[in-house]
């Protein structure tokens, strides 16, 4: 199997991980903890925003993140499979 291709696959994988985990960090540790008090100054309905992120919002975003990851990885897997087939055709 081609080294160049699997390296490229791994790099794209890491890029996906990095961007999704940044969001993971920002919504939980950021909005829910570090900047929570500032966000609490904003109130939507009965919720102060920081409190909402800490007890509700972060969890919803976690769920979305995993499904986005599933989607991106399936797409990447497909793309990778295609390029391998092309490579084999060329040889």
């Amino acid at each position, binding site marked *: 199997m081609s080294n160049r291709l699997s390296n490229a696959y791994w790099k794209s994988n890491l890029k996906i991980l990095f961007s999704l985990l940044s969001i993971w960090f920002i919504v939980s540790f950021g909005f829910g903890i570090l900047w929570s008090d500032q966000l609490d100054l904003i109130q939507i309905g*009965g919720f102060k925003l920081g409190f909402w992120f800490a007890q509700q919002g972060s*969890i919803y975003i976690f769920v979305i993140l995993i499904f986005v990851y599933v989607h991106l990885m399936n797409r990447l897997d497909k793309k990778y499979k295609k390029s391998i087939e092309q490579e084999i055709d060329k040889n």
Partner: protein
Amino acid sequence: MTTQELTYLFVGLSFALYIGIAIYSRAGSTSDFYVAGKGVNPIANGMATAADWMSAASFISMAGLIAFMGKDGSVYLMGWTGGYVLLALLLAPYLRKFGQFTVPDFIGTRYYSKMARLVAVLCLIFVSFTYVAGQMRGVGIVFSRFLEVDIDQGVMFGMVIVFFYAVLGGMKGITYTQVAQYCVLIFAYLVPAIFISILITGNPIPQLGFGDTLVNSDTYLLDKLDQVTVDLGFTAYTENIKSNIDIFCITAALMFGTAGLPHVIVRFFTVPKVSDARKSAGYALVFIALLYTTAPAVGSFARMNFIDSVQDSKYIDAPSWFKNWEGVGLIAWNDKNADGIIRYEFGNTFKDGRPKFSDKLGFSGERLTTNISEDSNKNEVYIDRDIMVLANPEIANLPGWVIALVAAGGLAAALSTAAGLLLVISSSISHDLLKKTFKPTITEKQELLYARFSAAIAIVIAGLFGIYPPGFVAQVVAFAFGLAASTIFPALFLGIFTKSVNKEGAISGMLSGLMFTSIYIVYFKFINPDFNHSENWIFGISPEGIGFIGMIINFVTSILVSRFFNPPTKIVMDLVDNLRQP
């Protein structure tokens, strides 16, 4: 039918269902027993993972904890769900790709060392037994309160049930039983939550009702709760008490600990493909989030209801749930000013902690205690936080069948988690200790027999923990997560994402994480508990959050030590390369 008859009926029916499923899906091979033959549908596996994960602590205790901790309770909500993001992105797909049976399997192979495998087994057994003790206790509490049998008999009955399907069915039996248990527990959690949400806010969706206005009023529930808690001398419900750094570290320790818990990781070994492992983690979190986003709503309703229904009422007129739980010994009323009226506010009821009941009754008929009264405040009520979810339907005056349902749900949560834990304990003994380390010559049939045998022994030990609960169960939960975060998670992560970390690095990393975290927790929780205050903690980090620092120490040690020894062999490098390909 009375509530008690209904409870017997619901619990009996659910148990019959679990046993039926166990007989239907018996395990025939070691692969069936350890990883359900790797043939579980990802959605079913997601449900099973959710049931496996949500324990008696999630079902029974968590909303109660949040009710009394307010915003600080978020550490559990974010910590116990955010870990799944780490699991899905950083571990599950790669470990499934690796394709063996247990977590120590991966560590032993990746770090080409029996020693590494043994250290992993040690951590795994410690983490899992810590956890299982709490589950059996949960079974005992539900039995004693709702079925009015002795706690010991309740625990034994629970042991027989778990024995039946874990020993017979292995992972295969457990998986399909857990799917049924998830359905029972989530139904049992949501029904009372919806009822109470309608009663308090008029909104049928608890997640929204929680931010809605109170019935017949323009005041938001949370604003009202803030005002009431402040009036009674507490910190406002939606404000933190703990420091930010402590909240940060506890949340992180719980997240990384969750991702490192062996009984959760092993669930992702049971699906057919790598892409199924990713998907399965997503479904698991959906099913978990359903309960975890409801819990903070339940917590706020419970706090509001609790204050409303007991504050300043005469003990003689107190609602029946108050007296029922007083009967079990989890509520106590210390009539400090002898006026017969219940007063609840900030402060300790007794100088010496939990109530110790005498046989005598007081003026109003309350159970008297032999405790020393704390007279520097006016708070007269002692309430055990564990009872809030179980008592909630009674507090809100819901019909008997809802109460019966909650009892069945609590049992489903405790039993499903206990079974999953017992299975990883037994497979680490029969597979990692016997087959892979000390007795490699045994046949598959013998291995399966040993697996069943060690599951049986593990159940007996767990049962004994339930009957004779070591006083430290609550304290050691921090331990389980701290250890998983500071030992297992870094070893797995570095095994996948670096090639340079070798066996010397991994072993010294795991041992340094293990030692640092255990010494810190043992010191503050057992040796010198009076010293357990924020001014004495390193950087103000409590023992609950220290696992995060232990994890960083593990990472640094592993990477530094690896530099001084030979890099891993070519076979290991190829293994890592292989994990990283689709």
